[in-house]
């Protein structure tokens, strides 16, 4: 989705032209990194402020919604509002929130009645596992197919892999997940219908296998839907390289096709993908709400989604802040890595 935007960047950097590559690189890098880090801190501060007011715009009274369908007297509802501090003026609530956040206290969830940090901690592991493994597989698969497809555009492999990945990319995630569940869960009965582990999971290595077994379908869904973006970015940037003079020169030197691709074309074509991958790493923390919901995976995405429907303000603020901070940090890192990888950026 973000691919075209990212792909445009190196082109712009190139247009700026190579200024002086002779500047002491390390000092430049440090200064560059510090500037970026400063910018990131500023963004995070803004996120903290925005988070609070953004979520207060959501409709619904958390106390009323949590009481939905239960026997609650007006007195009790009032009491609950006081307990959660929702009776205070918004400004007071805001300053309480900022104070707490600066002390790294994310508050207590309205619905689960547990500290938000604890809830996040419990769900971070499963999310990182699923989204992380999914990312690694999607990136590997996407880059491999993208490289092959881009190296021989129009070939049968290119047409086949591009078409398949685009088809999967356009499929709604929940639909693909349900389809896989139907086929492998209901008909073939070889994969489980829910969760990260069996209720009576074995210990030790058996447990690892059990988790791996539970991860197959969610991972497949996740990879299926997203790998197209890596494939297409890689393919298009490799296509840009294929016609370049230096490739022709290298080929004329008599380099083998494999070496030519691996040593010359791919490294140059890799830059847009690096940005994309780093951005995606940031989003890994956010998990994948749909996949987590379809497969009852106990992750952060699902936690955040549930929080919205209450609305559980503290829990939403906590998870949202974690996700945005992760994205900001990864973006900053991407900028820095980019700087290291591509000399052209240094001058920009």
């Amino acid at each position, binding site marked *: 989705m973000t691919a075209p935007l990212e792909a445009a960047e190196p082109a712009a950097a190139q247009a700026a032209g190579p200024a002086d590559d002779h500047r002491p690189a390390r000092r430049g890098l440090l200064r560059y990194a510090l500037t970026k880090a400063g910018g990131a801190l500023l963004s995070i501060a803004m996120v903290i402020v925005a988070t609070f007011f953004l979520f207060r715009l959501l409709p619904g009274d958390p106390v009323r919604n949590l009481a939905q369908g239960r026997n609650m007297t007006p007195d009790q509802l009032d009491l609950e509002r006081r307990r959660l501090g929702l009776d205070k003026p918004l400004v007071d609530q805001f300053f309480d929130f900022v104070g707490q956040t600066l002390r790294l206290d994310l508050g207590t969830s309205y619905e689960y009645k547990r500290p938000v940090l604890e809830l996040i901690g419990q769900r971070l592991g499963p999310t990182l596992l699923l989204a992380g493994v999914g990312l690694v597989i999607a990136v590997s698969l996407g880059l491999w197919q993208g490289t092959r497809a881009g190296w021989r555009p129009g070939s049968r492999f290119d047409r086949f892999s591009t078409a398949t990945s685009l088809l999967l990319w356009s499929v709604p995630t929940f639909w693909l997940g349900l389809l896989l569940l139907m086929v492998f869960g209901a008909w073939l009965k070889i994969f489980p*219908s829910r969760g990260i582990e069996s209720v009576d999971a074995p210990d030790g290595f058996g447990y690892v296998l059990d988790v791996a077994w539970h991860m197959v379908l969610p991972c497949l869904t996740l990879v299926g839907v997203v790998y197209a973006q890596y494939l297409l970015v890689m393919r298009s940037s490799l296509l840009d390289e294929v016609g370049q003079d230096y490739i022709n020169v290298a080929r004329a030197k008599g380099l083998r096709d494999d070496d030519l691709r691996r040593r010359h074309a791919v490294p140059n074509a890799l830059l847009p993908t690096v940005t994309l991958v780093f951005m995606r790493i940031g989003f890994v923390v956010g998990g994948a709400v749909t996949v987590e919901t379809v497969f009852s995976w106990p992750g952060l995405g699902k936690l955040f989604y549930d929080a919205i429907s209450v*609305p559980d303000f503290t829990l939403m603020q906590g998870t949202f802040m974690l996700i945005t901070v992760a994205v900001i940090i990864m973006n900053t890192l991407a900028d820095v890595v980019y700087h290291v990888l591509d000399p052209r950026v240094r001058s920009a």
Partner: protein
Amino acid sequence: MRKWLARLAALGVALLVVSQGQVALAQDPAAGKKVIRVGATQAVDSMNPFLAVRLVSSQIHRQMYSFLTIPDHKTLQPSPDLAESWSSSEDGLTWTFKIRETKWSDGTPVTAEDAAWTFNKVMTDDAAKTANGPAAENFESVTANGQELVIKLKEPQASMLENPIPIVPKHIWEKVDNIADFSGDEYPAVGSGPYIAVEHKKDQYVKLKANPDYWRGAPKIDELQVVFYDNPAASIIGLKNGEIDLIGRLNPPDYQSLAGDPNIVQWNQQGRRAAYLQLNHGATTTDGKEVGDGHPALKDQKVRQALHYAIDKDKLVAEVQNDLAKPAHGSIVPPMYTDFFWEATGDTKVTYDPAKANQILDEAGYKKGPDGVRTMPDGDRKLEFRFSIHTDTPIEDKLAEYLAGFFKEIGVTLTTKKLESSKFTEETGVTGLFDIAISGWSVNPDPEEVLATHLCSRRPTPSGEGGGTESFYCDDTYEKLYQEQLKELDRGKRADLIKQMQERLYTDAPVIAIYYPNDLEGYRKDRVASITSVPEQDGILYGASSFWPFYSLEAVESSATAEEGGSNTGVIVGVVGAVLILGAGAFFLSRRRKSVADDRE
């Protein structure tokens, strides 16, 4: 490139091997133990019974803790639980309960002190009020003397014998400093119910072991596991492939998808829920000020009555609910509760009759315009109503279509307004920004709480805080009857009062009951040998107001045959899959070698 393919193939093979190993493991959960797994489409919010509000949590807590009294599993009338017997004073203000001599699951004797501590905690600790605060709001004092518990009330209260507060062991809970901070996740949890919670994996499952010392006798199975699903469709798959043995609270499509499976029993019985339309008859706040933007025509009882006549409830049941409901000819209490259910008869009964509806509107001066749509008697506004429904409930879309068709017949236009659930609650319960809205309530054996949702005091406060109204209703007759039934200790006389309240709602029509959805569940007969519902005759399994169904569970002795089938299919598919992947890998590898060789030349 070759490496990549090799890795990919290896990964595929590894995954398949894994799946094979696991099929075997998962199919044999706990050899020799009788385990029943119940699916729930919700996860536990808290294992602390003072804080937990979700249905799944209260279902689990019912298995772990006892109550003073519980609805009898046959008659639904209050019957002894932890309280062996009880009596009340002449004025109905003092209740004395004799607590059963039994033991907590850690061996400590149960005394009235435990019950007194529990109730006093709810009365005095704000956090402890979260789950069941209103149930102790009317308590003046609770004291204990040995096995004798004395509860003094502020006002007489007929529903005293349906107190929903689970009684916890004082010797464990008095050590908890701050109820609000306590997750209850300490296992094995000490209780006095038929099961003992031994493990809770967040968002995954809760394991409950049979309590061998339970005073009614130990359950007939060894372990009850409650497994959480986020996705109802996946839970159906889980039931079909044997990961869970029972699932309740199904919607009609999921229920129907269980048809034809030889191992699954489809449970279709009368339910505890009433579905109704909420009509904005002039929403007000507790100080009587009007709020919202309800259509003025709905303030007229005649218009509400005419709408009622225009609804073909039989058709709704047949076509919207696929016959998995009963048409409502009563009000907010479903027929399952035979003692309190009121059904309209004779002249009061409203049956589908569009001609009569048209006649009522004609006589009341709502004339049809040239476009066939009626206008207010002063010609000011057309009778165009909005129907508020939820975004994520397809069945409500269908209902909206049918209602629009019915109302068109009487010159009333109905447009659909879909709202996300918290917005829906806000507009239909606080700000009054609606004309007609879908509504409903799952009723307990004692209907007091659903009756209370139509009281004046439940309307939003002048400062705009919701009080839990389900109709913005405020009616003198209804209020008076409510107060009378609160104090009426004679069950028969109280039932009469409650029926009068329902009749008032029926004729005044701030809400129009449309149907009573059935209780739809499914369980595997190759795993569950027998289970008793509440009430025993045509009742509910999961979601009943009693531990009884899961206490009465019996598991099928040997289930080896059914499992081997699944395992074999798995092995066959796995082997075929592995062969395919290896074959594909080999094919690519050989092609790759060939093309590399071509390049070299």
